[in-house]
């Protein structure tokens, strides 16, 4: 299992400080939710772990090796990434799109092997997009496309999966399905890091939650500890109803802070 360690990470986007000193150790086998209001630095943290933005200070280590010292292909085999949004520039078939997940594993000028094909088929089955396999990905609905893009990330079969808002544009049934899928991935040893906005789903499914606020970690720990009235009031600026259902926390925002 892989451990990602973040040490004193500070990042500015232009002149705007996006992360102001993040320290965390993230272990394989866990589903870790990153939550926080818009602009808190969630996506920047996800991109920084992948080495897509250069830190001003601090560093990110994958199993004690600094990411800046690792070749891009090695990071690509270690961390699968589902970026925010549904960027798709060419009208590829779903299967061809999912197959892009195998790029980090292909030797130069070699074709898809049977192992690659098995990974593609597995990812398609896990995300329930078998019926869409031969459809054009750009012609799918938002929710279908979200699942296909998740399949693309799963096809990498990396020990770490970072999903930036994997629930966007999904209906409640598919939201639950994706969260169950992410939890199952974590249970099989993968380190799953998911940027989420739905606090109840984060609370129900995540093993640990990092609550970001203005580029800093406001709280880090067990969902029921992190999602308390005080944190919701100071970080999100909302008054919320906090309850329990099926033994897991339920969070319903009721009004903005007076």
């Amino acid at each position, binding site marked *: 299992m892989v451990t990602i360690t973040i040490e004193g990470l500070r990042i500015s986007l232009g002149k705007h400080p996006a992360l102001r000193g993040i320290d965390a150790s993230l272990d394989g086998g866990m589903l870790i939710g990153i939550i926080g209001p818009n602009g808190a630095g969630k996506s920047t943290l996800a991109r920084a772990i992948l080495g897509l933005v250069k830190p001003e200070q601090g560093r990110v280590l994958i199993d004690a090796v600094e990411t800046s010292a690792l070749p891009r292909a090695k990071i690509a085999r270690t961390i699968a990434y589902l*970026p925010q949004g549904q*960027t798709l*520039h060419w009208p590829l078939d779903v299967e061809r799109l999912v197959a892009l997940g195998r790029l980090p594993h292909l030797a130069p000028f070699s074709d898809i092997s049977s192992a690659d094909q098995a990974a593609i088929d597995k990812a398609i089955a896990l995300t329930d997009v078998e019926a869409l396999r031969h459809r054009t990905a750009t012609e799918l609905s938002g929710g279908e496309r979200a699942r296909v893009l998740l399949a693309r990330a799963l096809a990498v079969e990396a020990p770490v999966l970072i999903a930036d808002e994997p629930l966007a544009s999904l209906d409640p049934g598919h939201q639950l399905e994706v969260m169950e899928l992410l939890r199952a991935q974590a249970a099989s040893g993968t380190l799953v890091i998911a940027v989420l906005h739905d606090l109840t789903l984060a609370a129900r499914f995540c093993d640990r939650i990092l609550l970001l606020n203005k580029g800093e970690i406001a709280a880090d720990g067990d969902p029921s500890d992190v999602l308390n009235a005080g944190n919701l009031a100071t970080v999100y600026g909302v008054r919320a109803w906090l309850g329990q259902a099926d033994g897991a926390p339920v969070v319903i925002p009721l009004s903005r802070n007076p």
Partner: protein
Amino acid sequence: MPRALLLGLLLACCAAAVLLSIGIGTAPLSFSRMAAALTGDGDPVARIILFDLRMPRALLGLSVGAMLGVAGAALQGYLRNPLAEPSVVGVSNAAALGAVIALYFGFAALHPAILPVMAVIGAFAALGALFLLSGASESPLTLILAGIAIATLAGAGISLTLNLSPNPFAAMEIATWLLGSLEDRSFNHVLIALPCIAAGVALLLWNGRALDALTLGEDGAQALGVDLGQMRLRLMLGVACGVGGAVAVSGSIGFVGLIVPHIVRPLTDRSPSAVLLPSALGGAALLTFADVLVRLIPTNNELKLGVVTAFLGVPVFLIHLMRERRLW
């Protein structure tokens, strides 16, 4: 369409285009005389026509067409814009400016190799300027902006030479060269163009997978292990070297790089890598056919290749427009 079938068909088109290209010309040459010349017997006149006039022309048609086709496909993939073509990075205009300078100052008359060599120098000067202007940024937008700046500057330079031409004949010589042609080319031209084009095609084909990954955007591609900086370097080098070599021997031939990827894309799985090689073969066949057409259409002066390709470009876009509007 299965890839092997598509490549086979395109290869057959190339072969047919070459046969037509070496079979048709101003001097009549019967099939038997041509066959004899090919096998090494034949009369010397037939051999000169075949080997010194028609073969170089056919070879240049294939290689220039292949280069323009693959450059268009690679740039469309990289910029994720179906309207991209080799001229957007300014290299074709800069190569043309190099050639025009050779014509304007009369260097071109000193030795037949001077004009193409100056065109290649123009292309590499544009490449240097592209690096300086677009910097190490990984955004395609900076490349387009720098390319447009260079293309505009080179275009202005070309207009200036036409403006300041000492006499109408000099201006006419430049304008005619700019229209693009493969007429009266020799093996010297092949020797200048072919290495540039071979290097260019190889560099661009190498980018296939990285272009596919870019379907997911820049972050998505980098997360799949693509080094965007290296990819951009290969792409710019490939386009500058190959298109520079192509323009050097053929003049400005537009639309091939733009339309060929559009013709072959629907026959592939539409991923950028799958379009590259078919675009090279399609470009080779299209330009060689267009060069045959130039010789077949009866006009007072020989039609220029760039004019024919421009006419061919229009229906391709009308068909796409009609499909987009679901009229057809």
